Structure formats: C-alpha cells, structure tokens
C-alpha cells in the first residue's frame, strides 16, 4: 500500500507541515524533497501545473495537490492507523468546516500581521485573535479538537504555531496573553513526536520572515 511516496515541500510552509504530521502520525515512510520556490523544479511544475505550488504529495507517480486534500487522502488510504477524520458524517462536516475556516482566515490574517503596519495591521491582529478565540470555543474542554487523539482540525491548525513567534514580534503582541487555551492546546500537540518533528523552529521562521520583508521592501 505504501508504494513510492514523495512530498514536495518548503520547510516553513504550514500547509506542507500538515502532510508531514499526517504521514508521521501514521508512521508512513516517505521521501521529503525541499523546493526552492524562486526556482521551482520541473517535477513540481509537472505535478502541479494548475497552481505550481507546494506541497505536492506524489504517490506511485501520481500527484495529490492541496494540503487538505492530501490529509484526507492519507487518512483514507492508510485508514487503519491513527485515524484523523471523524467517522460520523456530522462530526466530519464540523471538522471540515473548521479546517475550511482556518484556510480562509488564519494564513491571510497572519500574513497581514507581518506584511503591514498601522491601522491595517491593527485590524488584522484584532481579527486574528477573534478567529483564535472562535477556535478556542470549538476546542472547549477537549484535549485535542479530535477529542482524545489528534484529529483533522488539530493537524490543520497546529502548523501555524511555528509562525506565532514571527507574528508576535512583527505585531508586537502576545498570542498567549490573549488566547491561553490555544497555547495550552499547542503545547499538548507539541508533546507528540509527529508534531514536534514536523514543525520548524519558531526563531528560524522569524528569521525567514525578516528576510522576506527585506526582499519585499517591507519595513
């Protein structure tokens, strides 16, 4: 069933991290290939001609694009190990809703926090915290969004933790002060090897952001 599995990825990508975590949770071996996004490989362009983006999961030579589609695919093909997606259709719809919410909001708002200043940044910070609070509400008293074990929403959200330090430094605020439950959940996730090994160091991500700011000419 494993066959040949290759992940085309870029180390700071929270989307790539999702697939890394899913594969690690299930103990599935794969080849990780780092892409240079300023010089995309022929393989990447061939495997994802529509979007030309990472991550791309290549299974027996066939590409699966888009991180949420990859995580679902991984969960369906290797369904007997560490299931991530709920088996109940309604719980599954709820999980998909929150993953979609994370996709619509977290990355874009986070980007605004490090890319902008003044009022635009202030508004982004405010909305970002509101979104995290909504997610805290969904988490409730559960250990993970998935209940007693890591689930789809956990895998989709926790990668952004590696960017929190960068957001906090650029935005001059503390995410833990505003959303302590969120950080407590993050810490529980980080105790899992699949998560800890899939996320890059926060300081490294911050350095990367500083480089990007230079390149884009952002203060």
């Amino acid at each position: 069933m494993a066959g040949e599995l290759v992940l085309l990825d870029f180390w700071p990508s929270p989307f790539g991290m999702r697939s890394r975590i899913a594969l690690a949770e299930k103990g599935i071996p794969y080849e990780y290939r780092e892409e240079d996004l300023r010089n995309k490989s022929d393989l990447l362009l061939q495997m994802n001609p529509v979007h030309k983006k990472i991550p791309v999961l290549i299974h027996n030579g066939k590409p699966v694009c888009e991180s949420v589609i990859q995580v679902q695919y991984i969960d369906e093909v290797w369904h007997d190990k560490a299931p991530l997606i709920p088996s109940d259709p309604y719980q599954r719809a709820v999980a998909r809703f929150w993953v979609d919410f994370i996709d619509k909001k977290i990355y874009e708002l986070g980007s605004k926090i490090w890319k902008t200043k003044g009022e635009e940044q202030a508004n982004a910070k405010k909305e970002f915290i509101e979104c995290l609070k909504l997610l805290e509400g969904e988490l409730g008293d559960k250990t993970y969004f998935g209940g007693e074990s890591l689930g789809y929403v956990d895998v989709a959200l926790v990668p952004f933790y590696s960017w929190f330090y960068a957001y906090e430094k650029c935005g001059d605020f503390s995410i833990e002060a505003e959303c302590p439950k969120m950080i407590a959940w993050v810490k529980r996730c980080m105790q899992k090897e699949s998560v800890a090994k899939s996320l890059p160091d926060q300081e490294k991500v911050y350095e990367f952001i500083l480089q990007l700011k230079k390149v884009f000419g952002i203060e």
Partner: protein
Amino acid sequence: MAESNVMVLGTWASPFVLRVKIALHLKSVNYENHEENLPESKSDLLLKSNPVYKKVPVLIHGHNPICESLIIVEYIDEVWTTSASSILPSDAYERAQSRFWAAYVEDKFSTALRRVLFGATEEDKRAAMAEVSEGIVLLEEAFVKLSKGKAFFGGEDIGFVDIVFGSLLEWIEVIEKLSEMKLISEAKTPGLVQWADCFSAHEAVKDVSPDVDKLVEYALKIGARVLKATAATN
C-alpha cells in the same frame, strides 16, 4: 429515513444553494425549502445556524446545521448512501482529483466569475474575464480527463465536480448574455458544450435550476455590469 427533518436555508439565485438542492434531488431526499430574504434581512434561524458566516446555504438535518456548500454536498453523499448514485468516487485517488477540481472551481473560478459581474473597475473586470477564459480551458481539459469519454465529470452519472461547476452554468449564461460573448463554445470547449447540455437536462437538475432571464434581471438589479466583447478579450 427522517427525510421530513431536512431543511435548506437558501435563496433562489444562489448557485451555492443550487448545489445542495441538486445533491438532495439526486438522492431523492425530501426537504423543506426556506427562502431567505437576502440581503435585506437574515432570519433568526440563519443567524443561529451559521453564526460564523451568516450565509446561505445551510442544511439543517434534525437539529444539526451544516454550512459551506462543498461540505454540505459531501455530507449528503455520506449520509444518504442507499441511493444508486454516489457523488464522490469510491477510489481514494479519484476522490482526491474530484476534490481538487471542486476546490479549483470554488476558490478560483467562481470568484473570477463574480468579479466579471461585480468588479469595481473596468480593469478588474477585464482581468477577471481573462481568468475565466483561462479557467474554462483548464476545465475542458479536466473534463476530458475525468469523464473518460462519458457524459459527466463523474462518468456515467453526475458527480461532485459536475454539481460544483454545473451549478454555475446559469450565471455563466448571465455573463454571456450581458457581455454578448460565448464563454463555453464549440470552437474552444466542445466537451463542455455537450456536458452543459447533459447536465442541464438531468433529472436532478432541470427542475431546480433558476431561470436565466430572471437571473439577468436580478443581477442587473443588484449592480452587475459587464464589459461588452472587445478585441482584448478574444
């Protein structure tokens, strides 16, 4: 089979709501249609059922609200399994491909369509039209690949991509009428021309699709303006 406790909160003009109705019809599920008076007002039920976005469609099954049209369609497919037609393919890889194209239609294509109609500037509308034209060519290629010579993206019967893309056909016709340009044409996208005819005539689709002339009237009323065909958009 508690079909009497299925409700759809929607509006007649919304292609996203149409997806839900097509899926329910495909599965022969009876439901109560609740027409929202958007954008003038939102019912208490809508605000309670979709507090995050306050948008339609919402499917209410028993006491459970399900939001976001693509998620609702997958839910319908997973709950009502006794019917002959399966909306998502059974093979995991084919399922991933269907989800990819559905996401493409949703994230890229439908937003470009909206900008053609409601874009703030002429430049924005022109750029959006170019994106739509490119998108349709991509979708023609996807159709050839996924249909494998059959009538639909889903093969013998309509599937996920058919529903997600097909629900936009009337709005595509609105743009074609207002701009006096063909977006789906024999010359460029012959596969999609045939597909559109088959889709529109399908049992689960024909009785729920909105009337295009009424949609044109509605679109103009809510501020739609398209650029007429120009040399630049050929």
